[in-house]
């Protein structure tokens, strides 16, 4: 109960904060190619990846440059990772700009305004196509926050997609079709869900913002990608229930929407998926559950 109250308060604070405290996008005409909470090589993506034609990177708001990395001097982490800059703003919110070449005068930048140029896309990012990795950290609570909650909204008319659904029980996988029949017992519902991106010119598989699963009208699964924290070495998406990466992503493009004990009879399921721009996709399927 306490946790739900805390999450509600956090959500309310974040939504309220967005009204008062909307960040500017760090690049002009941003094209988001990876979203918060997505599948990043065995872990949740802790920020956005943004492609832009104009390479100039600006801070999202006024703040203080608290860390930058712009060369391979001794003391810099080995491996020559893409250079980055971190700015701390009001309310202990930090924004991280990675995969950039910091401005030549970055060492003289202390206080910055939203009109200053932190650097340009590039640096020595490992990516073949230059993009900005952008993350928002709430250093007060030690959380990574979905940047889309704080950034000015951008146009996104593409709805998320539910490509396929499958069920997993003792007998193995069952694909869901019109006349699916399955034995009673513990069953995991898995779905291939993605947000196709914000541009017709650039297709990418991104994480949506919210996923809900209803069984016979009752909500049995809820996940939204609002914030992320690390606990005992695991990244946890903070939703109504904290969710570990391995419990959600199944490694083959499917995500787990939880387990249910099916009893004989008809079962009706509905999956609702929405992105941050509230584009929504729903899919309903019926099962015949036998002894």
């Amino acid at each position, binding site marked *: 109960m306490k946790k739900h109250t805390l999450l509600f308060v956090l959500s309310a604070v974040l939504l309220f904060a967005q009204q008062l405290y909307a960040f500017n996008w760090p690049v002009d005409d941003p094209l988001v190619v990876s979203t918060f909470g997505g599948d990043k090589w065995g872990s949740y993506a802790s920020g956005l990846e943004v492609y832009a034609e104009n390479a100039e990177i600006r801070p999202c708001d006024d703040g203080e440059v608290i860390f930058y990395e712009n060369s391979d001097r001794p003391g*810099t982490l080995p491996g020559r990772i893409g250079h980055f800059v971190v700015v701390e703003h009001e309310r202990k919110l930090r924004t991280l700009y990675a995969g950039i070449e910091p401005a030549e005068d970055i060492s003289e930048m202390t206080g910055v305004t939203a009109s200053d140029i932190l650097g340009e896309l590039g640096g020595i990012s490992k990516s073949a196509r230059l993009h900005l990795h952008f993350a928002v950290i709430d250093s007060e609570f030690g959380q990574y926050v979905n940047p889309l909650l704080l950034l000015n909204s951008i146009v996104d008319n593409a709805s998320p997609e539910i490509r396929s659904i499958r069920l997993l029980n003792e007998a193995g996988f069952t694909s869901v079709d019109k006349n699916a029949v399955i034995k009673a017992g513990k069953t995991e519902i898995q779905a291939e869900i993605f947000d196709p991106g914000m541009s017709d010119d650039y297709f990418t598989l991104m994480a949506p913002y919210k996923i809900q699963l209803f069984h016979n009208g009752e909500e049995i699964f809820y996940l939204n990608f609002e914030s992320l924290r690390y606990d005992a070495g695991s990244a946890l998406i903070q939703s109504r229930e904290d969710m570990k990466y391995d419990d959600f992503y199944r490694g083959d493009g499917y995500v787990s929407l939880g387990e249910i004990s099916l009893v004989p009879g008809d079962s009706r399921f509905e999956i609702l998926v929405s992105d941050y721009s509230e584009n929504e996709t729903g899919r309903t399927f019926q099962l015949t559950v036998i002894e």
Partner: protein
Amino acid sequence: MRKLFLILFFVILLVYIIFFPHQLQKELVVNPSWVVETTAAEGGTDDHPVPFNFDSRFGYFSASGRVLFSDDVVYRAAVSSELFINYSSVSEQLVLQNPEGDIIGTIDSDGYPFFIGERLFVIAPDRMTVTEYDYEGFPLLHISPGAAVTSMDAGSEHLILGMLNGDVSLYTDSPDPVYTYYSTDSRYSVSYACALTDDGSRFAAVTGLYPQQLVCFEFRNDEYIPVFRMNMSEVYRRNLLLDYSDDGRLLYLETPGGLDVYSTATFLKQEIETAGEIRKAVFPGEKTMSFILSSLEDSSQLRLYRSDLGTIADLYFPSGDIYFYLAEGCFYVGIDGRILRYDIIEG
């Protein structure tokens, strides 16, 4: 009586001189020994191949100056004396190869491999995880410290991570830290540098902004305790050079004009002035020669120091892609694909 006293005095003096002679400092001489072009690999093997790693070329040579293996760097190369990983900018699998070029293992990762000493680590592109692997590519230790890693060091059995949230955590063989220092004294909590002695008995970190502090810890009576704390006079917002000498007796810290070298026993400081930007500092220990390689405007300078940190000599090289490697009784300097060996002779 007086004569006897004088004889006794000289006998004692003679015995003292014979058994407790005054140690005169030996003169150190540096002699160039050979030079090789790294592009001309002869092949073959060696019991103790020496790795080299320029921006665009890496490989191995023998102490006698024979280039054993040489290849172009694809994107970056992580090279140790026993294996290398030459990876591309979009690789999703890291291939481990021995100094002869034979494949000995693979690692499925899009992270960045690097060595600290002979330990192999891969850090995730978002810096949220660090994984140590053995030389066949099997994971040994996977750490998700909960914040982006900004600095790192490792000893034989210990590992230290400095994080963007200011925490500095010490690990051994478990993903749970054995000790964490939380920097809370500054307006902004960030870790800018951390260093660890080889045996893990001491560690140091530079953390925070306003004030920025150097903090040092020692393992005493089964716990790490703070032994030194200092507000930095110059504030950095980037990684800075902080390291222990190989024997753990000295701690050196980057300053605007060079390095401050602290005795870890007394924390008395000695300032070393350097010209240009420091590229590499090598402090084997209190009793041996030390080296600082710096980039000047149009050249590179290698300054050699005595054990008391007095300057022995300056060697100048053309500016460019430079490499330095200290071995037993000699050191190697590489410039733009050419490697020179210098023998250190005690006179």
